[in-house]
């Protein structure tokens, strides 16, 4: 039974990371029906920023948890500016273009950002400092769950609760929901749609950057390409849960994390991706809108 719990928590950690990235996909899709393929690169940029900041801070004599907090904070803010700029230069000019154009622009931005980091940094894998301190009380449960797993799950949970509260109870959240429902109508009742869209990108980028910092200090290495695979998996999770739905993205991520973890643990890791994508195909056959997605009638 221990083995089961080990796999359960491993899948939960993985799912929590997917969820932090998947939320960005699902929010952007919910608002402007665009799949932001450059989102994985924001996650990667978050991790790189944290690496640089952590390096500078440790040279200045900071240590342990203070580096983690400060580096995450800087990474989140820096990535927010990337999210904002990305929307401004790559998507806003194409808002009234055919739907394929922003999609291609997104793929272009993804490749651009990868190469930009590749040139600015290096193609090598870089060691990422272990920013998450060891908790002594974890000792007896070490093999089931390390301190970084615990921290990732906690941070993801807190981020999701805050996000839900933001959308449910604030004026900004109300405006976001209105924009998602009907952009033109929202504009008519006085919602600044452009600002809402920018905000969505900023929040999504912040969550992705947080995911990037956590996963990088969990596995201890980064390079310019990490955003691509994580992005694809998180996108899969968002579609699995029902793209456009926030609880759906979280549920989809957890289901995907557990599928991979249990599939690897009980069958074989050779087929890890096969399990993930077979699940996606199965869900889409029986529930085309995803687990929690609502099939909307086409607006006319």
């Amino acid at each position, binding site marked *: 039974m221990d083995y089961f719990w*080990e*796999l359960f928590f491993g899948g939960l950690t993985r799912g929590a990371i997917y969820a932090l990235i998947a939320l960005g996909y699902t929010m952007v899709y919910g608002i402007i029906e665009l799949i932001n393929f450059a989102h994985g690169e924001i996650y990667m940029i978050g991790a790189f920023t944290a690496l640089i900041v952590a390096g500078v801070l440790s040279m200045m004599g900071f240590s342990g948890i203070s580096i983690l907090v400060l580096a995450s904070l800087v990474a989140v803010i820096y990535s927010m500016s990337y999210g904002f700029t990305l929307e401004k230069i790559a998507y806003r000019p194409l808002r009234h273009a055919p739907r394929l154009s922003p999609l291609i622009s997104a793929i272009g931005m993804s490749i651009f950002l990868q190469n930009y980091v590749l040139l600015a940094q290096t193609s090598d894998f870089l060691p990422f400092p272990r920013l998450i301190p060891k908790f002594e009380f974890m000792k007896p449960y070490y*093999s089931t769950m390390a301190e970084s797993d615990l921290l990732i799950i906690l941070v993801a949970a807190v981020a999701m609760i805050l996000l839900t509260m933001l959308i449910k109870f604030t004026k900004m959240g109300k405006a976001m929901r209105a924009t998602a429902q009907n952009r033109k109508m929202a504009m008519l009742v006085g919602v600044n749609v452009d600002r809402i869209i920018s905000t969505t990108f900023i929040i999504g980028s912040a969550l992705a950057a947080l995911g990037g910092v956590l996963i990088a200090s969990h596995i*201890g*290495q980064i390079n310019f390409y990490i955003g*691509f695979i994580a992005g694809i998996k998180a996108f899969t999770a968002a579609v699995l849960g029902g793209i456009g739905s926030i609880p759906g993205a979280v549920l989809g991520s957890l289901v995907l994390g557990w599928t991979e973890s249990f599939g690897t643990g009980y069958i074989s890791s050779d087929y*890890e*991706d096969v399990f993930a994508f077979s699940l996606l195909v199965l869900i889409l056959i029986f529930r085309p809108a995803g687990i929690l997605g609502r099939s909307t009638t086409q607006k006319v």
Partner: protein
Amino acid sequence: MKSSLRALLGRFVLAAFCLGCLAGPALAQDTIILGVAGAHSGDLASYGLPTLNAAKLVADKYNAQGGVLGKKIVVVAQDDQCKPEMATNAATKLVSDKADVILGHICSGATKAAMGIYRDAKKVCMSPSATNPPLTQSGEYPNFFRTIAPDNDQAKVAVDFIIDKLGAKKIAIIHDKGDYGKGFATFVQDYLTGKGEVVLFEGVTPGAVDYSAVVQKVGRSKPDCVVFGGYHPEASKIVGTMRKKNMDTPFLSDDGVKDDTFIKVAGPDAEGVYATGPKDISSNPLYKVARDEHQAAFGSEPGAFFDQAYTAALALLNAIEKSGGTDYDKLVTALRTEYVDTPIGKIKFDDKGDAEGAGFSVYQVQNGVYKELN
């Protein structure tokens, strides 16, 4: 006009033919022809040209001392561009040019294509770079020798180390599903037959977010040693996850991991990790001699497989000298029995044609650097 031209041309051909008749036997008598085949042009020329340079250097060196058995050494080159169809042409040409021994070919595919022709013509052929295991192990080409270790050699070195030095009984093997990594893992599995128990054999997805599930699985199989086939990014993630879960099982990998980047990325987790890699030959005095000769003759650093090619040329000429001629059977026996001092060490060849003494050794990360273990 036309007829006179034809007559002139005919006379030329006749003259050339007669010259050939005269020159042929004359060449064969007081020279030894060292055929060099490989990619000398095309996109893989950088792999083939260092071999040609090495052959010339060794030939010049012998000629300066009066040749082998009193005969001058002539280097005859044939280009195959590493293409199998051109390799058969090159081989036919070298055989008809009466090459006594052949240094080459470079690529495994081209070598395989040419080998049959040399076998039928009873020519000894020695490659500095064809690492494909069946070339020697299939037993199809008794005339084939090589001065580079075959791909499966490091798996053998790894298995011997695991069994004899680590005393491991249960081994978990993971790989990255790639040609190189899975190839290494499969060879390890094969060599372990009858020596140890393989408790896990699985591939991981390169670039996956984390490997905790597969590491749990490794932990559950309770191995005495974990073997990984693949490159350093995955290796450092796996080792990191293992150490984080307090699994201090020995970890052994291949020369894709015997890279300083691995130590840099894995940090303190790298400590104690084993990896197989090519033997360190830089302390060998002959290695330096060969490199200096290249620098003096060509004014540049030698390229790929130069040391192996230099070794092959020395081994071939040494065998001719020791066997007292270019007789095929005597040459083969000499290659298999007579040791020769070369840049890659003191070597002779085994029954299959692989160089004994060339090859891999096991390294361990100690205080942040790879140290060769003996």
